[in-house]
């Protein structure tokens, strides 16, 4: 299809564009930004006046629940949720059932995502067999099969020697290692940040040191192994300090943060509100501000949803026993935009952290609007007010602290490879 989107404010950080401009799509590709070549006759022209036209979002941490937990959600249901939020590429951790540690699993996920047609799904391969932390996977084979990196998901690799070898081995083939830094002993059975809230509510706590000790170890291993590492789900300010030092030494390290850590803190848990139960836990207001500062400085370069869909019932349990995580695909851009609206971050930083930066981290050829690139883009209306509820939430998950609340700003159209995959 040939499509023109006119009069929108086009923000494309990778190409330094932030202006009112038209964009033209031909087939699966972007034809031109500005004036198309003569003879271009679009079948459809969309007026995006007063709206933003942005590259399709690349989300680095998304649980689709398939294979293994299809009762919660499927690749079909969650990539449709992604499309509704303007997300056109997702990276999924390997902690599916079974674990993504064979090429067959990678092919199956690719096939099912393609059949659904809403978004590209890029699996991470397991770093160790079964994520058990004892034996390396066939990383090179997994990479050849299409994994964009390797990861041990939320399972810690306790054995530091094995972690070092995993990094050395991955670096042989230039495979990026995705890490969620955490010392498992310090994390223990904790469910909230160690601080005022854990003390008041009497809940088992995860100290900040669980993350800072983990990140210090892993940075030391990166420094000597030559592996390229991506740290996801950074939750505390002191981790940002470690990242900043690593960046000054020009280590091949990148980092991302989940949107809820930019918006919420431990005090949001109130009286045991399990919708705010996430891992790593929500930390202090100072940490929240430190993470925002980390994005502004570039020490953290990507924002993800950390999408973890659950049924409504999964959160109806005492806090320690309630399910962990937020279903966040539907609301990622809306919530991220609230940081722009409240002047906590500028639009360019937020959009880059949702598009070009995560694309680069995952080695993907997307995340920008240059002519010739795959036409993955979205139109965002910052003025629409809507309520996240049963009728509007596209993910099959119902676990969101924002469920039932009025939100400001909404994706109205998503284009994936030149096809409109979402329109509201």
């Amino acid at each position: 299809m040939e499509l023109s989107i006119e009069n929108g404010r086009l923000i494309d950080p990778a190409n330094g564009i932030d202006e009112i401009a038209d964009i033209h799509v031909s087939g699966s590709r972007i034809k031109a930004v500005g004036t198309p070549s003569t003879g271009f006759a679009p079948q459809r022209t969309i007026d995006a006046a007063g709206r933003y036209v942005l590259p399709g979002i690349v989300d680095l941490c998304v649980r689709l629940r398939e294979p293994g937990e299809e009762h919660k959600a499927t690749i079909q249901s969650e990539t449709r949720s992604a499309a509704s939020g303007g997300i056109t590429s997702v990276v999924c951790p390997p902690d599916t059932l079974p674990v993504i540690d064979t090429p067959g699993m990678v092919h199956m996920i690719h096939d099912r995502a393609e059949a659904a047609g809403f978004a590209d799904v890029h699996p991470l391969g397991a770093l160790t067999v079964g994520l058990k932390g004892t034996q390396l996977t066939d990383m090179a084979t997994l990479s050849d099969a299409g994994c964009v990196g390797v990861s041990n998901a939320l399972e810690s690799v306790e054995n530091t020697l094995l972690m070092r070898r995993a990094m050395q081995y991955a670096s042989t083939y230039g495979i990026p290692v995705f890490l969620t830094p955490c010392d498992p002993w310090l994390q223990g059975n904790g469910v909230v940040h160690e601080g005022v809230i854990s003390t008041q509510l009497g809940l088992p706590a995860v100290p900040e040191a669980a993350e800072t000790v983990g990140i210090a170890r892993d940075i030391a291993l990166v420094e000597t192994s030559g592996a390229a590492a991506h740290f996801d789900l950074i939750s505390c300010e002191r981790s940002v300090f470690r990242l900043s030092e690593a960046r000054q030494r020009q280590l091949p390290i990148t980092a991302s943060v989940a949107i809820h850590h930019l918006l919420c803190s431990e005090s949001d848990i109130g009286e045991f509100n399990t919708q705010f139960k996430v891992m790593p836990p929500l930390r202090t207001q100072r940490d929240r501000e430190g993470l925002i500062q980390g994005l502004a400085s570039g020490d953290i370069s990507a924002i993800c949803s950390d999408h973890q869909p659950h049924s409504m019932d999964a959160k109806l349990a005492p806090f320690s026993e309630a399910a962990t995580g937020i279903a966040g695909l539907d609301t990622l851009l809306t919530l991220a935009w609230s940081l722009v609206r409240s002047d906590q971050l500028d639009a360019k930083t937020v959009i880059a952290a949702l598009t070009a930066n995560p694309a680069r981290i995952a080695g993907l050829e997307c995340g920008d609007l240059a002519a010739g690139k795959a036409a993955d883009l979205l139109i965002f209306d910052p003025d629409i007010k809507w309520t996240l509820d049963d009728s509007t939430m596209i993910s099959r998950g119902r676990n969101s602290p924002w469920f039932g609340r009025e939100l400001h700003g909404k994706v109205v159209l998503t284009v994936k490879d030149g096809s409109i995959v979402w329109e509201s």
Partner: protein
Amino acid sequence: MNVRTDFPVQFDQNGNLRHFLTIKGLPAETLTGILDIAHSFIDFGKREIKKIPLMRGKTVVNLFFEPSTRTRTTFEIAAKRLSADVVNMNAERMSTTKGESILDTVRTLEAMHTDMFVVRDRESGAAHLIASHLPEHVRVINAGDGRHAHPTQAMLDMFTIRQHKAEFPSLRVAIVGDILHSRVARSQIHALNILGAPEIRVIGPRTLIPTDIETMGVTYVNNMKNGLEDIDVIMMLRIQRERMDGQLIPSEQEYFNRYGLTEEALRFARPDAIVMHPGPINRGLEIASSVADGNRSVILDQVTNGIAVRMSIMAHLMGGQEKSKWN
């Protein structure tokens, strides 16, 4: 986009107390009101006919997912003296992934027209969860949830202090032992602060003191000598032996030498200081037998007062219900 979620579950929309889940956030008048009514119930147990018809026709379910003898028994006696019908449920609870969920159990019992649940569970927040998923007319009393709160215990402790001591604004109180795992300590701290105690100290090794404990309005002291100086009330906590695996305290001996309440340690406090303990006592671990049984100990008074205070709390919650029904 800040989401406020700290609405107190235990109040109804008009600010009346609907459940008794935590001391936190209760007005001082509510606490003194409960203590005053409890006072009128205290001689009641000595009467020949120990019943008043305040809860006649009401059904109270003691739902204990965690074993308890003394708390459950005093709740049962309290409810029966108010003429309620009482059912004791000692339920084994699987983790959420297996078996019936805690809410399913509660909803099943509620369907049998229960008017009040007295709930104990190993998980912090269990009573809040139950209270926020029951119909409006059903009352919930928290009989201990994880490490979070044990508000009726704190109330009977306050009652016992008031029996023996001057007004709260003139009292210095020390709480000694495993604060980290103690729901009793958390509720005591809230109650003492609300009632105006000018100084509350917590004493114990750092491994047993929660991070940021100062934010609850207490001062930390690392030794008994300084900690008990000028103290009017000593509240000992139970050390759970099974928890002390050599990582929180090195040995029972070293603990007792540093933090056990012995005759010698008691001399650091004011000469008329009283000694309290929520029970059950580990003699020779947190407290010496001679102190537990000595003339400064009010430990058995605490047990006795438990019935009157729990009657008062039940009456308080049911009274609110009657009012709203007839208004």
